[in-house]
């Protein structure tokens, strides 16, 4: 898929994924990779940015294996942002779908 499409959708997907439950880095990477094939290199900076913008919070939790893991948790602000992005996305895809249909009809 087009890299620009992926990048645009990534923020929303990450926020939505974290609404389900708190996740640590690797878990989140795997979860997101299921729907968007994207390099991890893009996810980490995004997490950092979302944290800096107060959409996410992070906390450390001991794990059975290895060092403590850093979990990401979505904030209230993050939920609002997710909802907003989702709405925008749906509106956008609806418009695009309609436009594609119209183009096909006239073709």
């Amino acid at each position: 898929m087009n890299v620009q499409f992926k990048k645009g959708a990534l923020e929303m997907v990450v926020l939505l994924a974290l609404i389900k439950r708190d996740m640590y880095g690797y878990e989140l990477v795997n979860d997101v990779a299921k729907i968007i094939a994207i390099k991890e290199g893009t996810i980490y900076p995004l997490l950092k940015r979302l944290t800096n913008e107060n959409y996410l919070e992070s906390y450390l939790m001991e794990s059975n294996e290895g060092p403590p893991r850093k979990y990401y948790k979505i904030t209230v602000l993050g939920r609002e942002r997710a909802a907003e992005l989702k709405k925008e996305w749906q509106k956008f895809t609806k418009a695009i779908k309609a436009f594609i249909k119209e183009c096909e009809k006239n073709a």
Partner: protein
Amino acid sequence: MHKEEFLSKLEKKLKILNESEKKDIINEHRTIIDEKIKNGQSEEAAIADFGDVNELAKEILRAYKVDPDYNKSSESFEKTKESFDEGVKNAAEWLSEKSQDFFDSVGDEESDITLGKIFEIMIKVFVVIILLYIFRIPFSILASLGAGVFAVTIFPFSLFQYLWIVVVEVLYITTIIITFFLMFKNDIFTEKKTTSNMKKESSKQKTAPKKTTSKKGKKAPSKETPPSDVGLIIFKIFVVLVFIIPLIIFASSLTFSLAVLIFFLFQGVVLTGLILMNLALLGFVFLIIHVLLSLFNNTKPSVWSLIPISIFFILGIIFTVDWAFNLSIVSEEKDELTKETLVITQEELAESTYWRNYEIRIDPEVEEGMVVVDIYYNKKYENLVVIDDQGGVVVHLGNLREAREFSRVFVAGLKEDEIRIPYYEIKLYAQEETIQELD
């Protein structure tokens, strides 16, 4: 690429971030890689998923709203150094592998750990020695050039040639010290890290690692030693003391020589080449100071002035060479000199002041207590040698008068593209006892 290598590269690129943030990022990436390896991915593949380190670092910096190019100018240097280090490391590894068999047969189990390191340092020292010689060339050109310029000036200024040589030598030594420091900075600050990496690499590369080695490799602390702030401060103070101060001295001596050249200009001697070169050098010194200072502010130094500086310098060299080829040095033959002979008493001689450039010879034929003075000089410079019979002072070579006369002659010569050096010689003859009393 190995995990530690990847992480240390990433860390280097993120050095603008504060320590805890950096640690956090590195840890996060370390855990992700570890988890992937645990889930059956190879180390290489786990790292490859992150893509290019530079891109990753840029993305992260953007997340912090840091201009990812903040480090551009030093980055190219870092890159050169990195590839240099890598080359050295590879060569060292090759050498250590080659000699491995030999050392194995000797049976020294520790040797395989440090061997690569030893070779690495040996190669670096070798390269530094070569650099030492290469750096020597421009500096010695600079030294002889400047010294030459000052050497043809009149007396008080001609002393500056020695100052110039000292300054250039100091600059050279400083450059060498800084080169050394940059070369071995990693070895000093992060010795632990490198050795532990080397251990891992060497134990991995070997098909049958020895038990002791692999054990040690695991035990070796994998913590990164952060480049200490104290070290940075010491380095900065060091730069100021050993680099900027001599540069300022250098700049002031250049300003002085410029003043001399302007003085000549007012006398009607136009030394375009030397003035241009002087201006270029002055500009260059200030540029170096500017670049050094920008090191402190972490700002990008603007080096546009290098272009006019080099133009000035090249033009200066062309003009100077042209001038120097047309220059003739006028030396006075001995037979052109006038000889004046005076016979004076020992006391009279003692009262005569300002004698320079004379020699005393033993002559038993001279009367006891008397001194024969032979003065050879050119009639052109009558003012230079004043023979004064009054008041017991026989030969008067006033310091100030002498300097003025020298400069007059010199400037007059330069106007005609000649270097005229006034010449005089004084010979004293007396009995041995008289000479001993004179001393």
